[in-house]
């Protein structure tokens, strides 16, 4: 990352976060994780399946509550919050992108995007105009009235990205956003997410695709719920060297 982004504000902060599941012998899906993500950063969260990536992503987005530790999103500690307040944090500060898009099939593209503002109490007219703007921003300005079934997979995922962005969140969390796409569409979506980060939003992308992870500035490797490595590289160096070598490290393990 460049020097100016180091001065950028911390959007996401996890301190000693743990989350267990199960009954008699609980499994620690996330074990004592601490990390910070700043505005404008794009982070790859990688690891084998069952490493706790998705659980960690849910904790980062206040969809789930940690058993131990603190999660701070845009300065708000969500750990002790009621459902109503935690939901408000999601509505105002977090945008989610999922592998399966989760577009509602009976709604048009612009209506799907407008859903991103539904729980902020914004009125319908404003929701719609902002949704149209968000769709233009992802290059789908000509597809406002299309149903999801009339769009390609890549277009559908861009609609989903627009829905995540429409509320102008501080943090975008993407869970395998290219998992259901061909490589060309996938690359397009990744470029889109990188441009989102370029405008100052913190982006965390869960992926098991090494190529995608390698193209991002920072890579956090998770194994058995713990952070194995957390490396940040200069974009320029990464581009020049192909795979690139770590020049800066921000490990918290």
């Amino acid at each position, binding site marked *: 990352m460049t020097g100016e982004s180091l001065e*950028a*504000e*911390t*959007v996401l902060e996890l301190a000693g976060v743990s989350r267990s599941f199960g009954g008699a012998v609980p499994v620690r899906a996330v074990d004592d994780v601490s990390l910070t993500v700043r*505005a404008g950063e794009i982070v790859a969260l990688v690891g084998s399946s069952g490493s706790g990536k*998705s*659980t960690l992503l*849910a904790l980062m*987005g206040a*969809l*789930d509550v940690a058993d131990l530790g603190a999660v701070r999103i*845009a*300065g*708000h*500690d969500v750990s002790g*919050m*009621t*459902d*109503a*307040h935690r*939901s*408000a*944090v*999601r*509505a*105002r*500060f*977090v945008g*989610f992108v*999922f592998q*399966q898009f*989760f577009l*509602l*099939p*009976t*709604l048009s593209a612009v209506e799907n995007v407008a*859903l*991103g503002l*539904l*729980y*902020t*109490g914004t*009125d*319908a007219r404003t929701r719609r105009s902002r949704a149209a703007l968000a769709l233009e921003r992802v290059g789908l300005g000509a597809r406002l009235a299309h149903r999801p079934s009339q769009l390609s997979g890549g277009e559908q995922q861009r609609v989903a990205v627009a*829905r995540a*962005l429409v509320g*102008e969140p*501080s943090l975008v969390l993407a869970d395998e956003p290219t998992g259901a796409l061909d490589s060309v569409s996938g690359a397009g979506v990744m470029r889109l997410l990188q441009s*989102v980060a370029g*405008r*100052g*939003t913190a982006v965390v992308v869960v992926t098991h695709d090494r190529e995608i992870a390698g193209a991002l500035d920072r890579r956090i490797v998770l194994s058995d719920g713990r952070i194995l490595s957390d490396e940040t590289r200069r974009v320029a160096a990464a581009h020049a060297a192909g795979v690139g070598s770590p020049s800066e490290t921000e490990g918290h393990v």
Partner: protein
Amino acid sequence: MGELRASTGGCVAPSRLRHIDAWRTALSGIRSRSTRSVLSSLGIAVSIAALTAILGLSASNQADVLADLDAQGANLVVVTPVVGVDGDAAELPSSAPAMVARMPAVESVAVLRSVPREMHAYRNDLVPAGESNGLTVAAVDPGYFAAVGAEFGAGESFGEAGRALPEVVLGHEAARLLGVDLLGVDPLGVDPLGVDHAAQRIWVGSEWYAVSGILDPRPRVAGLDTSVLLGDAWAEQRLWSDHDASHIISLTMRVRAESLDTVRRMLAPTVDPSNPRTVSVSNPSALVATRAIVDDSMSVLVAGLAAVALLVGAIGIANTMVVAVLERRGEIGLRRALGARANHIARQFLLECIVLSGVGGIVGWAAGAVVVGVATTVNGQVFVLPLASAALFPGVAVIVGVLAGLQPATRAARVPPTTALKAG
């Protein structure tokens, strides 16, 4: 987008969903499963239609029965003297008609007076005296016919002018037995065709009487159909020998239906304050009560069926909702991710129930009203459907729908967002 947010450690306002948006969301949820929604709504509609039809039909029926009974004389009370030990009917006091007319709930009083017992009516003067056909001859004032609600099938009342003349009005059966039909007779008595006027007169006692009118059948007024009624002034002048006697053999009163019981209780002392026990008062309301009981037992039966239909409708809605919650886990997860609270999710499903059952209730009420309309038109009855049912029945439907949707909605709200998203 580019702007950096300041780290505000303070409170966040709870996420909120506008009411209008909650309704829109519910509607779009219903539209996304239109067939199933229509079917589950239909279950409610059928039961509400049944309830509405029962209510309307029984109300229309009851109104019809009441109107019919009123027309027939259910609101007529007849006062007669108690028959004495010697078999001779006593007379009512001559003050009785005036006293009774003064009672506030009494709308009209008709007085029937006796004629000498040996007076009978015959087709003509050649018929043997024994063949009296069981017809009753009595004297009345011209207002009698209107007071008992009798209508003229032919001709008219003898009127004030004929009151003191040898003219008669015949009951329907009496006219048939005496062979009088008044066909071809001009009501004014002018007969350009020269029809034999002898056919339009009868022999009563020992004199000819002109027939001025024939009544329609009216079985509710006992004995009227077989009566031969002549004017009371004529009787006074020509028939009665004892001019001190009242000659009143019955009083027929039209009473306001709601005061029937009160009037009946006060009648005997009013008619004859000194000897109330010699006065007999008829009880027409027993008939009304009987008809009402028959109606009610029918209503209970069909209302039971409608309740079963309502239960089935509720199960339909509950089923639709349970399936919807299972099917739409992904959507639930998405909405939670977009900032919906658990109770926003519950509210969405409950509103869907309210819309489904409310629409079912309104459509059902309208369908029931149409059924009542058709049935009453076909039966020639009055259309009666209490207006309150238009609010009440859809209201009942909504309550049933909410009860049916409560469990699925709560379950939808309780699904952890992460679990819901995995299901998608």
